[in-house]
């Protein structure tokens, strides 16, 4: 036989395409179309589930398929795992119909994480648009639990309307943490809304940034991220200080199916969190 590409003992017994089964503990509706599944974390390949903020799971709905969904729980809490899911397609609609005790499949955690260690000793600017707050929530939990290790924390968050705001109670709690600012804006207000109206980038005029010592973490629709990093650059941040989290079609989550390619990058394994210079030159081009 010709030389084998791998020795027998190197082959992992684990098949990355087989989900672990997990039970749903609670379903919480955050808005009209967005819900959070609180899940009993399964053993992944025989090991307790653990993840880094920014990573995602492939979440399987029986008989229908999988969706790549970011993890939105606190990484320090090993006894629970949460996914906040926007009900838009077949799989997410099926997931939205599940109840306590129902079973889903999970593969993961996959992908890169937000640059927590790099942010130590620095100011942190978090900018989220819509469901983009979900992948940032684990990093916010961690920043706050390790509050003294970081400088000023600013959380800028934009949603379509006041009723589309996620995690309202927590946003309120975070705003009370010392040296932490939460500024929220909506595209369209309602009669009860007394806050900002407009795009997330408009919120930068309300904050002061110590640009040389700030790390920015941005997640939202691609157009929102583009305007946000351009604004951050105008305010003196270098591309190296800016991180974004990207979305693409994913079938495997582990760099084997080819679907999520973005130029030379696989969003699933080289991302979803990228330092801006890794992808910036391609974000300016259409249909990459």
């Amino acid at each position, binding site marked *: 036989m010709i030389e084998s590409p791998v020795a027998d003992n190197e082959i992992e017994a684990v098949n990355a*395409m087989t989900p672990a089964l997990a039970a749903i503990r609670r379903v919480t509706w955050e808005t009209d179309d967005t819900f959070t599944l609180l899940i009993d974390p399964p053993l992944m390949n025989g090991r307790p589930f653990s993840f880094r903020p920014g990573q995602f799971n492939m979440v399987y709905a029986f008989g229908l398929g999988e969706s790549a969904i970011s993890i939105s729980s606190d990484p320090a809490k090993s006894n629970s795992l949460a996914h906040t899911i926007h009900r838009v397609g077949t799989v997410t609609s099926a997931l939205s119909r599940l109840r306590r005790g129902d079973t889903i499949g999970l593969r993961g955690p996959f992908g890169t994480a937000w640059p927590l260690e790099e942010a130590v000793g620095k100011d942190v600017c978090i900018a989220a648009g819509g469901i983009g707050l979900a992948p940032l929530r684990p990093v916010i939990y961690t920043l706050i639990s390790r509050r003294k290790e970081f400088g000023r924390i600013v959380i800028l968050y934009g949603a379509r309307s006041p009723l589309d705001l996620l995690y309202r109670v927590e946003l309120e709690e975070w705003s009370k943490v010392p040296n932490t600012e939460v500024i929220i804006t909506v595209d369209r207000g309602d009669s009860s809304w007394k806050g900002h109206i407009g795009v997330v980038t408009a919120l930068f005029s309300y904050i002061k940034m110590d640009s040389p010592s700030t790390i920015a973490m941005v997640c939202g629709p691609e157009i929102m991220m583009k305007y946000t990093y351009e604004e951050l650059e105008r305010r003196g941040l270098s591309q190296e200080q800016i991180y974004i989290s990207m979305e693409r079609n994913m079938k495997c989550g582990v760099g084997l*199916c*080819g*679907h999520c390619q973005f130029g030379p990058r696989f969003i699933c394994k080289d991302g979803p969190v990228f330092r801006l210079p890794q992808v910036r030159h391609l974000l300016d081009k259409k249909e*990459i």
Partner: protein
Amino acid sequence: MTSAFRMNPDGLQRLLALLQQMDYETIGPTMSGDAITYDRIASISDLPVGWTDEQAPGIYRLVRGDDREYFGYTLPAQSWKRFLYPPFRKLFSIKKNGKSLELDEAESGTAKYAFIGVRACELSAISIQDKVFNLGEYRDDNYLSLRKKIFVVAVNCSHAGDNCFCTSMKTGPGAKHDFDIALTEILKEGDHYFIAEAGTEAGSAIIEMIGPGKATDDEIAAADNVVRETAAHITKSMDTRGLPELLADNLEHSQWEDVAKRCLTCGNCTMVCPTCFCSTVEDATDLSGQVAERFRRWDSCFTMDFAKVSGGNFRISPKSRYRQWLTHKLSSWVDQFGVSGCVGCGRCIAWCPVGIDLTAEVKAIRGTSVKQEKEV
């Protein structure tokens, strides 16, 4: 060639029989309708003896060649890819049990294949897929489990096809690596024999069992000459100098619009390509809705849904889909796996229904590269 042996056609039959005795499933070129494909072969009479192929952009035809020749064709329609990386494969089945689910993972492939007649460019393609499926933390266990068991009998090319450009990609026409046995078929003045060379100990052992005699210097020279002549007859070429950078710098070149006017986005090129590896998954349930299965199926970056997400589609235009394929194959593949994704087999050219020739597209881009325009 350090130790080359002369083997008559009956030695080829003996080789097949020995591999079959060793529980190998012998796969080789065989006639299938109006094409040669790789499939199970029981004996050398299943080989496409006496047939050769004519290939050109959008064209594949079988014609009669030398009546005695077993490997007188250039390349079959499909590559070996479908054996190591099956086009359709079950991943698991899962059934409902009250509120919980029970999952039954599909077994990895157990087939033990002997590939008979692997071309040099195809050896390179297999070594490229080795990198694709065995990179980093996650690997395709099914591929690796099939791959480590194969026995490879390479056959050096004696006919250059009009779509071949292996000499540009430095993959052929002679087999240099990754084979157990390499054969060169010689037809000379009424004489018909093979020169056999072992690439591994397993290959050596089998050659010994067949018991051919040592090749003479003249016979070895004749075999070397077959490969040299084939190389000399390859007319198509692709200039690979700085190719990854050239394409990465020209993502907005007008040639992409031009090729998009011709491309039908059918995906044939990706199906016949020996290195294309994209896949999708399919889910199905039985009529009771209690049992579901999940399958992996070959996919193509030319399909409309390939880059679709619930909120939109990242590659709607044919232009963007052709560009994804070509830039991945020749440019970003190098970033990802350290090698080009193209071996110069020309299958994508032959099986393109409108005859798009990637070497011509590259040439057009090179001729009017934005970088070059700047320099002018």
